[in-house]
Every structure is written in C-alpha cells, then in structure tokens.
C-alpha cells in the first residue's frame, strides 16, 4: 500500500473526504455570517444559536407534528428565518446607526438567552434525530465507508452556497443589498425599500444557519450546545476568508474543513486550534484576510 507520512494513501483520501464534509458546514455557516456582516455590518453572534434552532425546529416538527426531514429542510429555515426577521424588525434595526460593536453585543445576549432557554427546556445532553430513510446506509468506496447522508450534505451545501453567492453578487437584488450596506439612506432616496431588504437579508442569513442545522441534525446530537461549540470556529473561518467577502467565506470554509480533517490524522490534539493557527498566520501576511478587501 502506498504510504504518505506513515499514513496509508487510502486512509488519506478518506480523511480528505471527511474534511470536505465538515467544510460543508463551515461554508454554509460562514456564508450566512458573511452575508449578515457584509450587508448589515452586524456580527451575528446568534448565528450558532440559529444553527441550533434549525436542528431543534426539525426535531420539534418531527416529535410534535410528525413532520419529517424533507419538509423540515424547507420549513425549519423558513421558521427560523421568520424569527430572524422579527428580531431584525424589533431590535437589530435600532442598532444600525451605532457602532457595529453594539450589534455584536446584542446578538451575543440573544445567543445566550436562546441557548439558555433551550437548555432549560430540553437539557444539555441533546435529542435524537434519525437519518431520513432515503439517505440511510452507505456505500463502500474502497478506501472508506461513506454514509450516503454525508455525500448528500456535501452536494446540497455546495449547491446552496453557489446559489446564494450568485444571488448576491450577480443580481440586481444583490446590488441593492450591497449598496444599502454602505449608505442605506441614499439607496432609499433612489426608491428602494431598504428596511424590507435588510430584514430579508437577516432572515436569509438566519435561514441559512438553520438550514445547516437541519442538515446537521441526523449527524450530530441535537443539543442546545451544538451552536456555541461551532460558532467561534466559524468566526475564525470568516476572519481568515476576509470579512465581508462572500466567496471568501465559502472557499475558506471548505479549505479549512479539509485542513482540519488532515490535522485530525497527523496531529489530532491540535485539530481544533489548527484553524486559529492558520488564522494567525494569515493575518500576519494578509491582515484583511485571504479574500478580504482592504479596509
């Protein structure tokens, strides 16, 4: 068997694939974060909570209404997106004129409150959520056993990421969004209903997080803590990619997922700081991040 650094080549392929799967989650989450930041200048600390909410809504839909995975994949993001819209309308909106730090602090509080509530109601050890039967089982790729569900995650997240990117960078709607970020008043003077746009944006970001949450439910334990464990890493991903760069967030998400996956093979102890180490190096060389525009 061919070996690389003492690891069988086949095992390496397996690990690369797994890194890609994790990268899918990073990409989806950092994409939403980048959109909200890029367009609203809000660092959405509640992003992890919204991810968690996505998973929980799917769980609740299943257990109380008997609604299964497939409808949930649409329904949960919509529900969380609506909740996001309400939050934006009622609260975040008042913070746009202030230092962006207030948005960060508000969503930080929001995350604490939401997570606290779910911990209070559902405990911290999590809830089960089964893989949808259509995607159960796996295929033997020769070098590894790939659960079908994981393959699905990679494909669907890639599609969603690219779709979102196209929406924002290549459509008129996207142009409105981007310009409203810079000078909402002026865009409004031009005849665009900016407040509605911003609400939609936040809802979109929250919905993307929830979508990732539903995708994660059959893989990870549906737990109130699942978001806070993830959020800081995702922040690092966004910083490495360059804040505000949407493509940057997507690419960096996948790349860092793979980098982390490889670390798990060669030096597992470092696997959850590897992203921070990469971040430090990147910032030394390119302070604005890999894809960031110069501030």
């Amino acid at each position, binding site marked *: 068997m061919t070996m690389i650094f003492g690891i069988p080549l086949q095992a390496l392929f397996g690990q690369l694939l797994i890194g890609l799967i994790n990268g899918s989650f990073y990409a989806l989450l950092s994409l939403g974060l980048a959109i909200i930041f890029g367009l609203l200048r809000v660092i959405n600390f509640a992003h992890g909570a919204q991810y968690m909410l996505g998973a929980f809504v799917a769980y609740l839909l299943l257990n109380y209404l008997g609604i299964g995975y497939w409808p949930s994949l649409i329904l949960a993001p919509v529900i969380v997106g609506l909740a996001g819209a309400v939050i934006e309308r009622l609260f975040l909106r008042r913070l746009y004129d202030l230092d962006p730090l207030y948005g960060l602090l508000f969503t930080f509080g929001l995350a604490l409150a939401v997570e*606290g509530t779910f911990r209070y109601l559902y405990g911290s050890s999590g809830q089960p959520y089964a893989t949808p039967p259509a995607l159960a089982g796996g295929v033997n790729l020769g070098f590894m056993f790939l659960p079908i569900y994981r393959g699905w995650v990679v494909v669907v997240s890639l599609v969603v990421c690219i779709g979102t990117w196209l929406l924002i960078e290549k459509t008129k709607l996207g142009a409105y969004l981007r310009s409203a970020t810079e000078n909402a008043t002026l865009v409004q003077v031009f005849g665009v209903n900016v407040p509605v746009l911003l609400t939609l944006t936040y809802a979109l970001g929250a919905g993307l997080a929830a979508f990732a949450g539903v995708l994660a439910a059959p893989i990870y334990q549906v737990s109130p803590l699942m978001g806070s464990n993830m959020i800081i890493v995702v922040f690092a991903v966004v910083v490495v990619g360059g804040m505000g760069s949407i493509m940057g967030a997507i690419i960096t998400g996948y790349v860092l997922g793979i980098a982390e996956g490889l670390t798990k093979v060669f030096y597992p*102890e470092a696997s959850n700081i590897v992203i921070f180490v990469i971040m430090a190096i990147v910032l030394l060389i390119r302070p604005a991040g890999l894809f960031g525009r110069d501030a």
Partner: protein
Amino acid sequence: MADITEIIRTEKSRTALSVQAGFLIIGLLVLLLAPFFFYPIFLMKLLCFALFACAFNLLLGYTGLLSFGHATFFGGAAYFTAYTVKSWGFPPELGILVGVAGAAFLGLVMGFFAIRRQGIYFAMITLALSQMFFFFCLQAKFTEGEDGIQSVPRGYLFGFIDLNNSTNMYYFVLAVFLIGLLIIWRFINSPFGMILKSIRENEQRSISLGYSVARYKLGAFVMSAALAGLAGSVKSLVFQFATLTDVAWQMSGEVILMTLLGGIGTLIGPVFGAGLVVTLENYLATSEFPVTIVTGVVFMICVLIFRRGIIGEFYASRLGRKLGFVYRR
C-alpha cells in the same frame, strides 16, 4: 467620555469637582467599612471583577477596541500566580508580580496580532487567540486540567501580614484595587491618553501627524492586559484556586457585560457594572431563574435601551448634568 479633565474646563467645573470629591469620599468610606456589613469573600470577588472590568474598559472605552479575549489575561495571570505561589512557594506579592508580568506578555503577543485590525475584526481575532490560550490551558500540565490549581496558599504579605485572615486579605485587595484604579485614571489622563483619544477620533490623521498608531494601541493593550492580570492574580489568592472558567470565552463575555452595564468609557462605571453582575450571579444561583437566560436578556436590554450604562445614564441625566458631569461618547 466623562473623565475629569474634560470637565475641568467647563464652567461648572467647581460644582463638578466638589461633587466628585464628595462621591469619592463616600465611596472610599463605603469600601473601608463594607467588610463589617457584607460577606468579605463576596466583597473581594466584587473588587477583583471591578478591577478587571475597569482594565477592560481602559481598552474599550478609551481606545475603542473591543477585546473578546480578556479572559486570557485574567485567567492566565490567575494560573501564573497560583502556580508560582503553590509550587514554587513564592510569596504573594511576588506571585502577583509574576501574574501581572505574564499577563502583560500575553497581551503583547495577542496585541501584536490583533492590533493590526480594527473594530469587529479586532474582536474576532482576540476571541480566536483567547480560544487558543484556553486549549493550551486545558492541555498544559501545570494547570491541572479541569481540576484547576487548587488549595493555593495565601501566605504572608511582605512576610508578615497574614493573608489567611480575611480582614487582612480584604484590605489588601482593596489597596490593590485602588492602586489599579489610580493607574488607570492616570493613564487615561496623561499625555499618552491624549494621543489615544486622538487616534480614536481620527486614526489617519494621527498617522499623518507622525504617530505610530499601532504602537500606541499596543501600549494601551498591554496596559489593559497587565491590569486585568492584576485582577486575576489577586482573585486566585482570594479564592485560592485558578481554574479553566477564568480563561474561557464566557468570562470575556462577562467582563463586557459588566462594562456595558456600568457605562463604557466612564472611569467608575465598570465598578458598578461588576457589582451588579456579581451580585446577580450570586442571587440567581439560588433562585429559580436560569442564569444564562437572565444574563442574555440583560445584555439585550442594555444594548437596546440602556446603552450608556448605569453611570453613563446618570451622567447624562438631568441630575447628572446639574451636578456638572459630562457624558460624551
């Protein structure tokens, strides 16, 4: 910003000064007499957190940098002090010195990376770096993992003041707190502080006047880190242990809450903020309310309708203005 210097040049300076002096004296009296009415450990904890919050505010309130990684300095210093005092038998004053120096060093390293970016980027970078430090502490031998360094002896201050006596310990902590506050006060009202202020106002312009902005920010960062370390070191002696909770990112969040609650950019606001948070946490511990929910909601309310914080709102209120205070952010 509501520091005294700005007020001096306003017309109401006289009332303001005497009012401030009055508050100062009352405050000091309260602190001196407090141990006769309140539980000393609780008071000491409060003072430690108050100093921590003031140190944090030195950075946020006076240079506009929101650090999401201050737990690193607080908890790091606690570990350094606890370790040297327990394992190497250092006397408390030396242990604290090591803690402060260690925190300053950590501040230098973190600052080196973070200072290059501003605002939210800065916050995220400090957060990430402090996560790294957290994992370091989790895995390093000397921190004893999740057990923490326990049973740290308080020892004798300068060889003869027995800190195991809680009255002695209280007045020692109080002294440290006051010294820390004094340093902060001097720092922000110094020529250096003036440059910091100008950088916050217009960074490009400061550069064009020949100031190496990064170095000034780094200076403020290290100072803030060192003082946060001072608070952490003392806390490790008060409680006689140093554990992972002090370096976790939630601690960084807590100190932000304290500062926000008390009033960003006010010298003594964070003291009140810390007092409120610590009291609340203690109270909630024995109540039916889940702590995290309450903390989260307090955060949201503060940001939405109470942004200036307790002291800030007071300064900005009619009464506050009548007394000659100014609140400007």
